[in-house]
C-alpha cells in the first residue's frame, strides 16, 4: 500500500485573494479609462490626427503612415481596453497599453514644459499649464494628466505580470497556468 503524500510538481500555486482583488481592480481601472479615452478619440479621428501633427509624432511623408496611425490607434486602445476588461489576451493588451503610455507620457511632459517656458507665458506653477493633450479629454491640466498616466502605467505593468484569472473569460476555456516547479525534498 502506498499513500499519496507528495503533491504533484505541476500543481498550481494558490493565489492569495488579495491579488485576485487587485487584479480585478486594475483591470477595471485601466480598461474603463482606456475605453473612455478611445471612444472620445473615435468620436472625431480628425481631431486626433490634428494632435498627432501638433506633437510631430510621425514623419509627414509618406502621409499614409501618419494617417493610418490616426485611424488605427483609437481602435487599438479600444480593443486593448476590451481585452483587459474581459480578461482575454489581457497580458498582451496590457503590454501594448504600457508601451503606448511610455511613449505618450514623456511627450505630454515635454509639451507642458515647452508651454511653461514659452516666452510671455505667465503660469504661477508648472501644474497651472493646461492644453489639449490629444488624449481624448480635451484641455487638461498637465500635472493631473501626468499623474493619471503614471497610475495607468502602474496598473498596466501590474497586469502584464499578474497571474490571477479571476472573473476572466479566458478562465472558461484556457487551462490554468502551471505553477513554478517545486523543489522536491
Amino acid at each position, binding site marked *: 500500500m502506498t499513500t499519496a503524500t507528495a503533491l504533484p510538481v505541476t500543481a498550481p500555486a494558490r493565489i492569495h485573494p488579495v491579488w485576485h482583488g487587485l487584479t480585478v481592480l486594475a483591470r477595471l481601472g485601466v480598461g474603463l479609462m482606456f475605453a473612455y479615452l478611445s471612444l472620445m478619440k473615435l468620436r472625431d*479621428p480628425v481631431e486626433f490626427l490634428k494632435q498627432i501633427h501638433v506633437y510631430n509624432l510621425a514623419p509627414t511623408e509618406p502621409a499614409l503612415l501618419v494617417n493610418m496611425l490616426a485611424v488605427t490607434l483609437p*481602435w487599438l486602445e479600444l480593443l486593448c481596453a476590451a*481585452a483587459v476588461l474581459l480578461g482575454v489576451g489581457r497580458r498582451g493588451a496590457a503590454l501594448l497599453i504600457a508601451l503606448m503610455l511610455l511613449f505618450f507620457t514623456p511627450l505630454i511632459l515635454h509639451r507642458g514644459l515647452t508651454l511653461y517656458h514659452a516666452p510671455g507665458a505667465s503660469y504661477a506653477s508648472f501644474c497651472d499649464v493646461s492644453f489639449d493633450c490629444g488624449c481624448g479629454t480635451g484641455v487638461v491640466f498637465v500635472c493631473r494628466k501626468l499623474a493619471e498616466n503614471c497610475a495607468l502605467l502602474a496598473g498596466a505593468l501590474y497586469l*502584464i505580470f499578474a497571474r490571477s484569472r479571476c472573473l476572466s473569460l479566458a478562465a472558461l476555456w484556457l487551462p490554468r497556468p502551471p505553477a513554478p516547479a517545486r523543489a522536491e525534498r
Partner: protein
Amino acid sequence: MGASKSILLSAVLLIFAATAIGMAVNPFRGRSRIDLHRNYAPPKAVPVAPGLPTRPAVPAGATQPASEPGTSGASRTTPSAHVAHEFQELAYEEVAALLADPLTQIHMYIFLDARNDDAYRAGHIPGAIQCDYWRGDVPQVVDRAMAAEKIIVYCNGGACEDSLHVCRELLRYGVPQGNIYLYAHGWEEWVRRSAEIEQAQP
C-alpha cells in the same frame, strides 16, 4: 518562454485587428473620415508679398483703436499673442466694421471660420462660412475667396493656428496674399465683446 510568446502573439493580433477595423470603418465616417492619401501637414509660411499694408503688434486682449481695416501700422511680424505669421492682422473693431459694411452683404468681404464642426455649430460670426483645414474645406471656398476683396479668417484665438493654416492653403490655391486677413484674437475675443453671434441650423 511560452508565456512571453503568447503575450506577443496576443499583442500582434490586437494590432492587426485594430488596423483591420480602423481601415474598414474609416470610409464611412462622413466628415470625420481621414483621407489616407492626403498630407495633412500644415502648410509652411510663405514670404511676405512686398507692398502689403502692415500693422503693429497687438498685445493679447488689448484693444486697438478703430481705423481703416488692415491699413495701419508699421511691423507685420508676430503682431499678437498669435503665432508668427505673414498675413495682415485685424483687431476686433476692424472686424466689426467689416461685418457691418454693405460690401459684406454682397460677398465682397467674406468671413471664414476655421474651427471644427462642433465649435462652428455652437456659434460663429454672422455669415461666416465654415472652413476647417483638417476636414479639407478649403477647396470648396476657393471660388468665393477669389471673387472676394477681403477674406477674414479666424479660429479660436490664443495659440490656435487653424486660421493660419487656412490662410496659407488659400495662398496655395492662388488667392492674393493682400486679400487675406487674419483675425488672430478670434472667437474668444468675439464672443467676449460682441453680441452678434449666429448659430448653425442642426
